[in-house]
């Protein structure tokens, strides 16, 4: 078996920090859906309601955070 390879400690810490950022965003979404669903009908973004805006935001955030992690680690 090949020897284990891990990125730098800083890279891993950043990865875990970004992971928790996303967990907070996802948990926030779940909390709104479960406990304040009335907020999801608000239309703060160009006529699109919060349910769709938050959902698409989560998808965009997943890509943004993953890209951020990649760029940061490329610097290392």
């Amino acid at each position, binding site marked *: 078996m090949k020897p*284990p390879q*891990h990125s730098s400690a800083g890279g891993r810490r950043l990865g875990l920090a970004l992971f928790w950022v996303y967990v907070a965003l996802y948990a926030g979404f779940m909390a709104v859906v*479960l406990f304040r*669903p009335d907020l999801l009908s608000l239309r703060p973004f160009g*006529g699109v309601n919060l349910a769709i805006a938050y959902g698409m935001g989560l998808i965009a955030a997943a890509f943004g955070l993953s890209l951020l992690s990649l760029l940061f680690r490329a610097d290392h």
Partner: protein
Amino acid sequence: MLYDTSPLALAIFAAFVGGVIGLSFYLGRKGQSAQAYYAAHGEVHWFVNGIAFAGDYLSAASFLGICGMIAFHGYDGFLYSIGFLAGWIVALFVIAEPIKALGRFTFADALDSRFNSRGIKLAVAISTLVVSVFYLIPQMVGAGDLIVPLLGLPHWAGVVLVGVAVTLIVVTAGMVSTTWVQFIKGSLLVFFCGVLAVLILDRGLTVNAGRPGAENLAPQTRTITRDGTVLVDGLPQSRDHDLRPVGTISRLPDRYAGKTATGPLRPLEYLAALEDSTIVTWAPTKRADEAGVHTTYAPVERKGVDLLKPGGYFKGLTTGKLADRLDFASLMLALFCGTASLPHILIRYYTVKDAAAARKSTVVGIAAIGAFYVLTLYLGLGAMTSGALDPTSSNMAAPLLAKSFSTTLFAIISAIAFTTVLGTVSGLIMAGSGAVAHDLVENVLGVQMTDHEKVRCGKLAAVGLGIVAMALGILFRSFNVSFLVGWAFNIAASANLPALVMLLFWPRTTKQGIVAAVTVGMVASLAWILLSADTYEKVYGLSRDLSVVPFSQPGLVTIPLGFFVLVGVSLLSPAPPPSSHRGRGPR
């Protein structure tokens, strides 16, 4: 509904399958080592692997199930998309690099990397097989659903066709051909969903799209008689007397007063216009008498604003019952935790050369999968208002949406949907093949094999799994595919994730703890599912009230249970020697 068969769809699909199988035979001619069969030599380029991730992951449930759920129930299908994608964050930031570093061919390799324990290999191999089989069922059911409009053949024929094609692909060149079929499928799927989304936006919203006239809003009844004859409104079903396609807008927003169509719309404009429109959806009600089972589909006018928020499918979100909310939270937790625990996804990390490539390929996968899920929202909503839906089958929403544009596009989308099944099933068969041949036969039973014999054993296992997949696809044909995938995610998250995470982050983890966590997580989640109200109703045909568990989705209980069991058993068993975790795991 009865469908006209599409020779063009058949030709496109046959060309794809023929091309892929030809490629597989070509790749297989070079002679194979176990490293090639199980891990494609570990030399797949990270970009190809990233798109192959999408091809592996975007299953029939994602394409057919989510589109159908959005088309029939509105926003709630998008909740599945959100949960499915969120799971990739766990894969990228927590799992990707360590799993690449620790494993070789299978998920069991990684979990057993510190211990060399037969118990771990056995427990993880069984868990891999259980998860793979639960994931296989909806794929095969989806294949059967597609074959009906494509070829006019019975459901079972689609299941057998996919089973045979996938088995051929896997046994010819293993992970090499599996990777390429997933790469091609992933590329085609995202591209043509993009094409469909552009067409939807270009068409905009139209009142009574394709279904003018009040008679098209009359209820319609489908009866299945005791002898199996299908009646539509009391007369035998035929091409001249069939259910009418449904799904239209009855009123556009006030800003389009006096118009019957919006014309082309920008992406956000489309969503805003739909939210202000009134949409006609069709609700089924069932009754049975001595003549047979009657399902009446009746139109229901609904405000767009109600369809574009949660609660259309997950009724519990609007009833306010605690158990219903817990059920939903449990599903979303399982989707979040399940992706990084799916054996057929994890083994794809072994096909790239190093941890950096694993990371990069995950980012490419997230980009492709995320784009696809945004597109499915438009596909589902486009289908909902296309006037082309089959009221009896949510799984046909996407192909029928394509048909509302042109029969050529219908043929292409149907063929791609069929290849969608091929890509995912080949990944699942590969994962199962590795679990049987590498984990069970070689490592648990201790059968000594040459490299050539290892490959042959893997291929025999693939054939066996292909046969099992076909049988299950025929047996479970009446299920909604997304529902079944939820089961697989729950079992994977409950059985695999606690052991994997604790192995990486808690040095006190012992082999006894891992075996116990995997076993308890798997058995508890499986038992919970089998005792749930959903299963009582949809599988056993019994009353939901007979169920003995408070809600149907087990993850909220069984995922934490896996962690507790691992910690408890590890603390009660001898600590592993310090050397066993030296050099392993994240720092």
